[in-house]
């Protein structure tokens, strides 16, 4: 059957059905089914979120000052971003302002997460979609060294001997017969296009990045005590500053700042000398594989983040841009108001929840939610053994959020398209520079490759911003301000009887919002709409498909039984399924009594 979706895709589910479950190298659990035509081209795509944990239910009745710790555990990969969103939501609700130093430290931590997450995503979750480690065994270490010195001349680890050592280690590993993580990979699939030298260089950097990432996060450890899951504080940051006096060793002092500064340099160097050159080099061999654009050329959304000044979230005061683009019109970037019940709504017609009436959309303030796990009549298999899912019915634990009715893509590419459309200086320069280097038109951005490249560019921008906010922090301290927390409204007795607030961030994977309502000092309702809810959204009542599904459409597969292309494109979003799944009441009760104004 051929169906035309309102957002412009032609779905045909008559061809052969391919199932990928589990989709690996993601955070959480996900399933994907596609139909391919006789030429192996994807003509229908169905993505299913296959887990649900219910954190928002669990938050009811808790102390709002504790919420950051609960929500932080939504995700250990984008660790800290939910916590930051949560403290912002609670501060917004209670009218708490934070000191400048706290803003700088929070920004440094959030930027640090972006950099860490982007690096780990590219090398450890995404690279094996482009890079073939087995093929690296055939590389000439000398030629690999030359390649390295050409693409990343400032990276010191580039000698032929170095690459030979890595290759030998890889060889021994493969010859041991215990292939570990590489077991049953698709290593003879022609979808892998790199010459052996590029494969060896990339595998080497896979290992280098593994070493590097544990250094990067130490900034979280210094300010937040540990990583994953550093500590946060409503009203500021928990780490005090003491630069001059007795006991400074128990606080942020000169030694701590020096360590932060060293790590910031490490981030800047690695991103500039290794990450970006790798994306350019690898991307060069895939420059005509421009599938996977999906919604990116028509509908993208970002809330914006990294406020220049404490307590000011105006769009023009944010270093990561805010805005929405619809209908592919880059000439018009719409403003986004997350409080507006007309703008953000969630639908559950194809999600395992019940809103009582079909086609109903609810703003997060108004989130009525009730679980209903049921499979459609055309499901192949049984309730606890799904062979083929029926997308005409409910088919995912992910809800379908829409912005003014549009399915949207969020994430680094969305942020970069919005930044480009708004004429954001650094973002525009980066994009133009990359396109020039790769000799590609701007349309090439709207692709799997574009998504992967935007993430790398963003890591570079964030690494520089990390330095910027470090300098800002030091300047402020030098000017005599050591304050890191505002405790005026720490005690619940100082809070209004009823309050509600919104917190927004740009998580590594995209726009993240938490909506909290507080009554009598306790959380009355808590709702999160997270990046992978946007990207991994199932169909809505009108039949609009979500970003994952759209991105897979019309992609040819070299071998339909080997989902290399499906993984490549899904991974380009950096899916985070633990984040994306939503709320329900265990006894089916309405979860909120808050009414939209």
């Amino acid at each position, binding site marked *: 059957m051929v169906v035309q979706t309102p957002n412009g895709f032609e779905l045909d589910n008559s061809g052969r059905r391919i199932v990928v479950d589990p989709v690996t190298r993601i955070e959480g659990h996900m399933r994907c089914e596609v139909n391919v035509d006789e030429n192996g081209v994807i003509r229908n795509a169905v993505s299913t979120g296959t887990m649900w944990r219910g954190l928002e239910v669990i938050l009811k009745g808790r102390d709002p000052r504790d919420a950051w710790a609960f929500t932080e555990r939504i995700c250990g990969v984008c660790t800290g971003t939910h916590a930051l969103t949560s403290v912002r939501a609670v501060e917004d609700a209670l009218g708490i302002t934070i000191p400048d130093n706290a803003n700088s430290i929070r920004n440094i931590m959030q930027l640090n997460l972006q950099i860490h997450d982007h690096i780990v995503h590219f090398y450890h979750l995404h690279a094996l979609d482009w890079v073939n480690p087995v093929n690296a065994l055939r590389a000439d270490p000398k030629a690999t060294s030359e390649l390295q010195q050409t693409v990343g001349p400032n990276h010191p680890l580039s000698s032929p001997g170095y690459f030979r050592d890595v290759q030998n280690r890889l060889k021994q590993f493969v010859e041991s017969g215990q292939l570990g993580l590489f077991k049953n990979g698709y290593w003879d699939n022609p979808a892998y296009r790199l010459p052996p030298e590029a494969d060896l260089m990339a595998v080497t950097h896979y290992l280098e990045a593994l070493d590097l990432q544990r250094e990067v996060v130490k900034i979280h450890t210094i300010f937040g005590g540990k*990583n994953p899951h550093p500590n946060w504080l409503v009203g500021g940051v928990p780490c005090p500053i003491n630069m001059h006096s007795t*006991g400074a060793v128990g606080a942020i002092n000169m030694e701590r700042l020096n360590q932060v500064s060293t790590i910031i340099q490490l981030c800047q160097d690695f991103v500039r000398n290794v990450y970006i050159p790798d994306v350019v080099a690898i991307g060069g061999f895939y420059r005509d594989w421009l599938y996977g654009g999906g919604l990116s050329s028509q509908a993208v959304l970002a809330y914006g983040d990294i406020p220049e000044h404490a307590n000011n979230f105006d769009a023009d005061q944010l270093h990561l841009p805010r805005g929405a683009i619809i209908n592919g019109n880059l000439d018009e970037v719409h403003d986004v108001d997350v409080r507006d019940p007309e703008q953000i709504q969630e639908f559950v017609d194809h999600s395992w929840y019940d809103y009582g009436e079909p086609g109903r959309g609810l703003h997060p303030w108004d989130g009525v939610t009730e679980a209903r796990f049921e499979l459609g009549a055309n499901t192949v298999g049984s309730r606890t053994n799904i062979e083929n899912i029926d997308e005409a019915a409910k088919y995912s634990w992910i809800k379908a959020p829409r912005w003014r009715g549009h399915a949207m893509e969020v994430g680094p590419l969305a942020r970069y398209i919005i930044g480009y459309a708004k004429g954001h200086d650094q973002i525009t320069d980066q994009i133009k520079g990359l396109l020039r280097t790769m000799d590609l038109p701007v349309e090439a951005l709207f692709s799997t490759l574009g998504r992967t490249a935007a993430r790398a560019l963003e890591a570079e921008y964030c690494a520089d911003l990390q330095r910027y906010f470090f300098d800002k922090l030091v300047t402020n301290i030098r000017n005599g301000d*050591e*304050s890191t927390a505002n405790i005026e409204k720490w005690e619940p007795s100082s809070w209004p009887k009823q309050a509600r607030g919104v917190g927004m961030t740009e998580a590594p994977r995209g726009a993240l919002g938490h909506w909290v309502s507080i009554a009598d000092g306790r959380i009355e309702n808590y709702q999160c709409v997270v990046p992978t809810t946007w990207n991994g959204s199932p169909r809505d009542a009108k039949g609009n498909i979500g970003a994952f599904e759209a991105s897979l459409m019309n992609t040819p597969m070299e071998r339909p039984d080997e989902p290399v292309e499906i993984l490549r494109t899904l991974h380009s979003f950096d899916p985070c399924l633990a984040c994306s799944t939503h709320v329900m009441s265990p006894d089916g009760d309405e979860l909120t009594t808050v009414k939209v104004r």
Partner: protein
Amino acid sequence: MKPRETFYDVMRRQGITRRSFMKYCSLTASALGLGPAFVPKIAHAMETKPRTPVIWLHGLECTCCSESFIRSAHPLVKDVVLSMISLDYDDTLMAAAGHAAERALEETIEQYRGNYILAVEGNPPLNEDGMFCITGGKPFVEKLRHAAKDAKAIISWGACASYGCVQAAYPNPTQATPVHKVITDKPIIKVPGCPPIAEVMTGVITYMLTFDRLPELDRQGRPAMFYGQRIHDKCYRRPHFDAGQFVEAWDDENARKGYCLYKMGCKGPTTYNACSTIRWNEGVSFPIQSGHGCIGCSEDGFWDQGSFYDRVTDLTQFGVESNADKIGMTAAAGVGGAVALHAAVSALKAAQRKTQNDVSEEA
């Protein structure tokens, strides 16, 4: 297939001398709190052992345990994965997906029946026929039972697998259930924490490979070597506690001097973990050092013990030891059933020794 290479082979191939290798062994011994007599034992084990197959499953979780694991500084995680274990199935990191991934799981179970370690991150939800966590179209709990059946031992990574963690906090809508309540016929090592410290994770694995046995476990099933003492016991701010010097408000004068965080709700006095000794991320810091109290993330049910900022109330300033032990005993009593089951497994029985001195064996 070629004979599998040992740690020693790998290290020699890396250009590491015999002398350096022995130094590594002695460092390992001291890191594990073992005397010099253990150095030759470690060396022997590393010279003769092939890489142990590990299957790493993921249930309801946030993946913080995997993220923590890859932060390990000694040993480096690349050395663990390339040279110490054979991570034959791990859906977060493996190249293959879908059918090819499931085949890798089956092949590993088949090939190493009774000889692989099952590492579990996250836990199975039992409500809705287990379909709050679906993998391969089926409830995760089925996959867990299947992989557990032929495992040599199970490691429950983190608070989720050990105790349930955040999704099992009240009212636990999915009925998220810790591993030991679903799998009752295998030795299980709990490595709690949200997440556990990276070097504790790799330390537990390295210990098992080195000594070919489970680490000594306390009565809750945790490795005594890392979970035998409270954070408070070894906290560098303990002298401030003893001297009655406390932080009274966030960012006050005392906070800037690094005084004790007890009055800000620190759970260090009731939390068994190695944070104040091994610390985090290669020893850079730990929560208290960075100014926030411990939230008790390695304790059973820590989400439901009131606010993280509530003071631990039944802790008198000078009677800390006995009161904190009472708390430990209450927690231990709750897992009595599980401990009894563990005790039936002979391999584990030897390791069942009391480690919290004041708690009686019958608790």
